[in-house]
């Protein structure tokens, strides 16, 4: 086996125009011009994706008056950041953080228990439930916002965090349940049975055995629910009526005035909004590792 591998490795490292003889039928190797073209294309695409974010960062360090200039560095200043932090921004930041964190916690818990139930238990109506989860995702926000608003009003939740938390859960939970169901399906059911024989209740099996094994799926769910709550504008704009309750997504609109846009402030606010999402992603990506259930069962 090693001999075959080294032969292939050696021939790819050598002159790209020569065809290797011998053991394996050769794949067509990329010619040099094709390689250059491919890399150029990828670099261009990456540039197009990253540049706008980079430009916002650059703009946030320039006074608004210089926002339109194309220089990377002009009158470097922190005044945008300080002016944003002096306004209602910190309060909105807190609102967003609370709403997003609670949505994440509640969303992950409900999705995980729901996904586990769909994966392991054959309760009456489990198939219609799965269909329901799929179908409800097809409804756009524009259709749902009025009925949900009415429900929230009747519950007295308008202008509280819970109106948004519950609304965001309706968005995220069906998708995440499906995702986690698929993930739990990969955990062999014998582990559940071994847990039962050892003396665990069904919730105990779920909590102590299956959840530790589903970390990648839970990490993705956590990130997805967080992001749903963090960036959502439509529900946030309607369910939060008093200014001190606004979330960031809605609050940032103040920088877009009728006659003039405060580019500097807007850029600074945008950068600060990105930071928590990056932090959550950093924490979560550690759990996105494969091989978690390796060794538990044969094969």
């Amino acid at each position, binding site marked *: 086996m090693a001999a075959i591998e080294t032969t292939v490795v050696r021939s790819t490292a050598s002159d790209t125009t020569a065809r290797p003889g011998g053991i394996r039928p050769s794949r067509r190797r990329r010619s040099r011009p094709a390689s250059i073209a491919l890399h150029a294309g990828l670099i261009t695409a990456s540039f197009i994706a990253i540049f706008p974010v980079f430009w916002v960062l650059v703009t946030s360090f320039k006074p608004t008056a210089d926002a339109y200039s194309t220089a990377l560095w002009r009158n470097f200043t922190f005044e945008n950041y300080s002016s944003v932090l002096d306004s209602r921004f910190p309060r909105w930041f807190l609102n967003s953080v609370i709403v997003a964190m609670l949505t994440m916690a509640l969303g992950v818990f409900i999705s995980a228990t729901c996904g586990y139930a769909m994966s392991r238990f054959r309760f009456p109506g489990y198939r219609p439930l799965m269909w329901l989860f799929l179908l409800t995702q097809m409804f756009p926000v524009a259709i749902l916002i009025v009925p949900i608003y009415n429900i929230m009003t009747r519950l007295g939740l308008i202008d509280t965090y819970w109106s948004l938390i519950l609304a965001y859960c309706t968005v995220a939970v069906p998708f995440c349940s499906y995702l986690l169901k698929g993930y739990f399906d990969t955990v*062999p059911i*014998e*582990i559940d*049975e*071994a*847990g*039962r*024989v*050892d*003396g*665990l209740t069904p919730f*105990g099996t779920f909590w102590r*055995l299956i959840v*530790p*094994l589903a970390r990648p799926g839970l990490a993705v769910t956590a990130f997805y629910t967080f992001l749903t709550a963090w960036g959502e504008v439509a529900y946030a704009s309607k369910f939060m009526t008093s200014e001190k309750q606004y979330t960031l997504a809605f609050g940032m609109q103040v920088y877009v005035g009728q006659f003039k846009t405060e580019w500097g402030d807007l850029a600074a606010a945008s950068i600060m909004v990105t930071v928590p999402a990056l932090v959550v992603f950093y924490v979560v990506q550690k759990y996105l590792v494969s*091989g*978690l*259930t*390796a*060794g*538990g*069962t*044969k*094969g």
Partner: protein
Amino acid sequence: MAEVSYVNASRIYPGNPIPAVNDLNLEVGDGEFMVLVGPSGSGKSTALRMLAGLEDIDTGEVRISGKDVSNKPPKDRDIAMVFQNYALYPHMTVAENMGFALKLKGVPRSQRDTRVREAAKLLDLERYLDRKPKALSGGQRQRVAMGRAIVREPAVFLMDEPLSNLDAKLRVETRANIAALQARLGTTTIYVTHDQVEAMTMGHRVAVLKDGELQQCDTPRALYDRPANAFVAGFIGSPAMNLKTVPLTEGGAKVGDLLVPLTRTVLDAAKAASLSEITIGIRPESFKVSTDEAGLALHVDLVEELGADAYVYGTAHLGDTDEQVVVRVADRAVPEMGQTIRLTVVPDETHVFSPASGERLG
């Protein structure tokens, strides 16, 4: 006293007309090693899981130590189970895996550690106590699974084909280890396998199942010498017994050119059932290669030499058809392919069954 009984136990999966386990009646004594054996789909795993509490029991009941446990959850039945693919907890170390059940019961840590270490010593796992299952070989994982069961000191061990996923050599070694372990611990054990060699070598008694029904439950020797029906006769013993339907004559059965004498009891039973044909079972080692020209003619198709002896696969003309026959040749003078040899049968080593019902005659 940890006896186990199945009393008219049945399990029918919803939507299936045929029961997976049909009216099973089985008694296992305290300290006995009972093997449930049968082909795929025979209901042996289902029967084991019914005892474990992982399958519902639709009718009848299951008793452990005389008490009806049919409605109790697995943890209240005082059992421990070894699964076919081990089912170790991947995120825990070997020591944690083995101690988990005790931890759930609230056993204090020092006691737990002692028991885990004792079991590890018994199974030669002391070096691996801090490893996770993914860092172990198949054989080691299998021993951890057994260790997890032993630590609990249950009334009954349940084992569901634990050797199926091991390579052949390891299987032979582990087979002996499991049998020795059970003898040492004296715990009642129910062991499920599809491999009749495991059944014959490990069990005090063996229960043969087919299509959810118990065919025969007896010691390995009795199963081999007096199978109760044609299925058990063909299942136990490798290579399988030669089972051929042949006409009955005065004094015996006509197997090709050979007249095989039968006992009075068998002939009377056949006459009582008004049979003109019977199914005769002759094990490969019950044939003798005859040196003269008398006997059943066998055209040799294939010879399998296994070192100590050889198995000859050939075709014999019985009645109107050519049938395959397997013969064991114990000496070094092995016939060649294409040769025709003559066979006789050792008297008293034949088995006779009814062609219709498969039941033993006499």
